[in-house]
């Protein structure tokens, strides 16, 4: 019995389903070995985590999509086509955003999903997202907002509290919606909230940003900052619902950028400057445990955190992102998510502000329910 048969055999017991999902995401060739029972485990999990398009694009890229059994293949082909349409729509929208900001001569940095599409990196392939995120230095924030409003974006109407929440405490203005295309745009002046305990200043990120070919005013974060931003997003925020996809993103970035020693050197410098040894260590641990991407010796130079809670934290994150559909433990996952939700909020805001914020959320939800 080879390793794959063994994986499929264990997949029939509940715990093993997760392993099978990670196997096909690590190397799409593993999908050729799946029997109908294997697909019955894998496909719902991929769908739950928005990763069906990713596997479909992997298989398509490797020329293997045609070799998947037709009953399953039609789901994958539809997901590949949807991913293609999504990327095309994002590129079109990027053109509009760029035109609006270039007219006002405001350079901007694309973040997350839109950046992956613009750079055509592996982490963006088959990935779905609802809004485009862009970053400008705070000094240009008002000018950027003005330029976008002139190009027919509008700021979502909010009550006084939510306006204060965004304008005073957060790292972005309230979400923008285009009046004709209904596309969503998040305009950031930083990658972490103003109130956050995590330090990740905008200036050095913008300074190191890489221009996007074909655009005069658009750039993306440099590879090491792209990776770091994804890590901070996953390990310092309160919402872990996209955890499976985010860890896969990190794996793809390591495979794509990690062969260049400069990536690891620059990442190590940032880790020290921004004091992010903990989150990067959790990320590296999870990616290695789940996907095991090849790591060059330079990767070993990342600073190691000296912390007693490193072990428990790793386990907490591992439980929190467990895909329950594949047999993960529901109660354990909920508890881990809850602890990390509390931690995320603690990192996001100082305690008095947090109490005020949670109090407002609880009471306003009640008021809404009574309406």
């Amino acid at each position, binding site marked *: 019995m080879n390793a794959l048969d063994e994986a499929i055999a264990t997949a029939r017991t509940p715990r093993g389903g997760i392993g099978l999902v990670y196997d096909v995401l690590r190397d799409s060739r593993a999908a050729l070995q799946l029997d*109908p*029972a294997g697909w*019955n485990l894998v496909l719902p999990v991929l769908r739950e*985590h928005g990763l069906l398009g990713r596997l479909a694009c992997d298989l398509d890229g490797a020329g293997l999509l045609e070799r998947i*059994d037709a009953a399953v293949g039609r789901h994958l082909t539809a997901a590949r086509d949807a991913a293609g349409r999504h990327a095309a729509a994002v590129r079109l929208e990027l053109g509009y955003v760029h035109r609006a900001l270039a007219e006002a001569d405001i350079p901007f940095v694309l973040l997350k999903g839109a950046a992956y599409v613009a750079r055509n990196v592996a982490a963006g392939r088959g990935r779905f997202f609802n809004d485009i995120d862009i970053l400008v230095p705070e000094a240009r924030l008002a000018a950027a907002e003005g330029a976008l409003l002139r190009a027919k974006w509008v700021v979502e109407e909010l009550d006084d509290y939510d306006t204060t929440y965004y304008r005073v405490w957060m790292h972005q203005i309230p979400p923008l919606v285009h009046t004709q295309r209904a596309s969503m745009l998040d305009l950031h002046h930083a990658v972490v909230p103003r109130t956050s305990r995590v330090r990740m200043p905008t200036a050095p990120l913008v300074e190191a940003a890489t221009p996007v070919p074909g655009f005069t005013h658009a750039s993306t974060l440099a590879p090491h900052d792209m990776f770091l931003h994804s890590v901070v997003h996953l390990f310092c925020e309160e919402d872990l619902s996209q955890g499976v996809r985010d860890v896969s993103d990190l794996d793809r970035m390591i495979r794509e950028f990690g062969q260049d020693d400069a990536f690891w050197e620059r990442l190590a410098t940032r880790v020290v400057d921004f004091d992010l040894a903990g989150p990067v260590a959790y990320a590296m641990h999870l990616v290695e445990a789940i996907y095991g991407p090849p790591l060059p010796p330079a990767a070993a130079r990342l600073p190691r955190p000296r912390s007693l809670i490193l072990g428990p934290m790793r386990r907490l994150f591992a439980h929190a992102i467990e895909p329950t*559909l594949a047999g993960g433990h529901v109660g354990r996952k909920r508890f881990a998510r809850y602890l990390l939700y509390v931690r995320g909020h603690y990192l996001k805001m100082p305690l008095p502000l947090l109490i005020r914020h949670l109090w407002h959320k609880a009471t306003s939800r009640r008021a809404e329910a009574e309406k």
Partner: protein
Amino acid sequence: MRTISGPTLASASRRLSAELPSTGVAWSLGTFHVSLRSDVAGLADSLLAIYGCHPLIDPRIEFVDFPVAIGRAVGPRRFISPQILFRADGAEPFDPQPRKNAPAMLEWGLNWRIATQGHWYLMLHAATLHRDGRAAIFPGKPGTGKSTLCTALIEDGWTLLSDEFALLSLSDGLLYPLWKPISLKERALDIFRERVPEKIAPWTFHSTKGRIGFYVPGFADGQFAVAPAIPAWVVMVSFEPGSRLRHESLPKSDAFVHAANNSFNYSLLGEAAFVALRRMMARSRSFYLAYSDLAEATAFFARLAEDGVAEHSAA
């Protein structure tokens, strides 16, 4: 015609209530296989009433397109009036419902999953039937009388392809079967409960649209069809109380727009949808039909199937 034979859900009825909450039960709807897991008491009986004659699917050896679950909602409310939740692929798209709506929730849930995932078809909000492999398509919003007409046509010898969905393949341009019960409202429900009581599911529920029940077409042993049909007639139907049967030919451009407006995924599929719909229109005759009397309407369709030229006769 290709059919699926073998054990049906009804033949496994004794295992059903044990398997439903544990491993789940899978069955075929024609072009899709679905499975349900549920710990809601009594759902096994409802399942048998609607899908009893459908082929049983073994998920250990066959791929299931859409696995869904209906479970009891947690929270303090369960002690007063138990509520249920629909889940599919980790998503819970609907608000909790009272337990008695479980069978209806299964129907909505399957429709929702198909409409959001089956994008290798152009999906029209339409009822589709066929006779000898040639299909009639009735696109239109609920309340136009298409489900009532289709039920009458099935009783007159037509074969159901699908009620809520027309599944038009993007690759071969054929219409694929999706065997689900037909939902009938108020008066239509009463009509068919009187005519064919054995084909009406033994419960109704109240929605914003009024009282709704299910007509279960059923089929003889070995007649469960999975073969597609060729689009032949596109009918824009309208129920007009008291009126005589009227029909007139509809310009293909009008029928095209009407079908596109009643599609779940036309704009999502873009050019592929345009190509598929144009091909469907090129193959079919399109006309407008107003009716009030079901016997008159079924006779019209019988003539249509026979010579295919009835739409040219005087209105």
